[in-house]
């Protein structure tokens, strides 16, 4: 059931620029022929359960890819592997062609890097979670600032300016001193998006960003995401929002049982899905 709605009359106006012009320029300057991020034959298992069975995925500059699929298909796990949040049991991840999360130990073997080293590589990837994962002991402003002060090394003053601006742009300037427990779900998710964006990532990953929201709040978040896409951010979105996938994504993927079983442009994907499992899934969610 699509809950995505384009902006309506009477909605609070959204700043037309979420990202700074310099940032947009930088994004556009990313090499076009190399995928911004790619997963090559990635395997992941929890004990005996194989969650990802050799998944290969890539996304190029400015693309928006939506990933659909039933629960347990490995969508979230794939995202976390790309975000370098989980160790791989096989395969590799590359950002702009360079190996990340591991190093070449020679002889075709890959040795995982220490947590410290991987942490630095995660700066290129921004992630937004289904349950927001905002830090409850910090205000909205504090949440957005902390990545800047702790990781990018900005002074508190500089961080505050950047954070203030970003919160304003996602429509939450007036709530910046509120704590997560005092914000609605949609507001919290927008704070989470702002938190990830201020780090200036090259690609944004969204793991079912609206699944935990009340229906009337979904639109606020989707509008921010749409604006981001319009400004040229490379995005991977795991979602159930068919309307959004159809309206905003360049390509749509279907995952099932640890593999990508179908991929295509939205119209083709939704009008005439090739795989029977895709057809069954789409029928179930319509």
């Amino acid at each position, binding site marked *: 059931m699509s809950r995505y709605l384009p902006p309506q009359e009477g909605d609070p106006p959204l700043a037309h620029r979420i990202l700074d012009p310099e940032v947009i320029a930088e994004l556009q300057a990313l090499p076009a022929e190399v995928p911004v991020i790619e997963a090559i034959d990635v395997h992941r298992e929890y004990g005996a359960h194989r969650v990802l069975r050799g998944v290969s995925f890539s996304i190029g500059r400015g693309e928006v890819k939506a990933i659909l699929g039933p629960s347990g298909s490995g969508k979230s796990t794939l995202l976390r592997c790309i975000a370098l949040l989980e160790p791989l049991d096989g395969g590799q991840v590359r950002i702009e062609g360079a190996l990340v999360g591991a190093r070449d130990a020679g002889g075709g073997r890959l040795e995982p890097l220490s947590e410290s080293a991987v*942490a630095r590589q995660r700066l290129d990837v921004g992630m937004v979670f289904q349950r927001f994962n905002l830090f409850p002991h910090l205000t909205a402003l504090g949440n957005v600032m902390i990545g800047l002060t702790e990781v990018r090394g900005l002074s508190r003053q500089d961080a505050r300016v950047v954070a203030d601006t970003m919160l304003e742009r996602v429509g939450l300037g007036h709530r910046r001193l509120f704590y997560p*427990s005092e914000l609605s779900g949609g507001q919290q998710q927008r704070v989470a998006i702002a938190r*990830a964006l201020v780090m200036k990532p090259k690609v944004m990953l969204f793991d079912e960003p609206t699944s935990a929201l009340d229906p009337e709040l979904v639109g606020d978040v989707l509008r921010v995401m749409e604006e981001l896409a319009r400004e040229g951010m490379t995005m991977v979105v795991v979602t159930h929002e068919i309307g959004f996938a159809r309206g905003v994504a360049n390509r749509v993927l279907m995952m099932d049982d640890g593999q990508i079983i179908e991929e295509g442009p939205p119209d083709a994907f939704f009008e005439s899905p090739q795989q029977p499992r895709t057809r069954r899934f789409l029928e179930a969610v319509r």
Partner: protein
Amino acid sequence: MSFDVDVFITALFSRALREGVVLTIALTVVSFGVGLAIGLVIALMRGSRYAALRAAGWTYIWLFRALPTLILLFLVWYGLPQLVPALRGPGFEPFLAAAIALSVNEGAYAAEIIRGGLLSIDDGQRVAARALGMQPASVFRRIVFPQVVRVITPALSNDFITLLKLTSLAYALSLRELLTMAQIQVSSSFRFAEWYGAAAIYYLVLVSVFMLIQAWFERRYVWASQRRGSRFGVLRGFGGAAR
């Protein structure tokens, strides 16, 4: 037996109890502080990647929760100088021995409280912090630890108050803390009600002051932009959290 108010008042302001309470407070604060530090280390060991550290942590908790505090006091007072020649001189005072024993004891309990606190933090917190590129130390210091503090404060406050009264066991090491001082006065005056009554007042005051401190501390962890103020706001602590 009659209750002599004059004796009670004398007892209340007596030098004996005043000196005793200083020792009681000092011993409690020192033992709690050191115990908390030990507990943090042990709790982190129990969550470590290395099996040897985990085992060591578990062993510590097992051993020092099993040993009755009194036995631990004796072990430190009589046993430790046998093992550590440096402690054999008159410098190894009862206070030091009692502080060591009580710290080690408290460390085991604090470790479990902290471990419980660490477990209670939603894993998503760590994932989100790591996703921002935070180093493990930052994740712990800025994200996990502040949330753990909020969770463990009530249980640790309990421990503090328990420790306050547990210090009276140090009588066995000849430490003249509050309760022992009262006992000594009783033994020469035979005025039980007055002296123990006075000691009880001291404990009541100490615990009351501590609870006020606890409430003030908890207010700093009420994560809300508008604190629900009320006349008794200070006492409500977490109860006043805005939702």
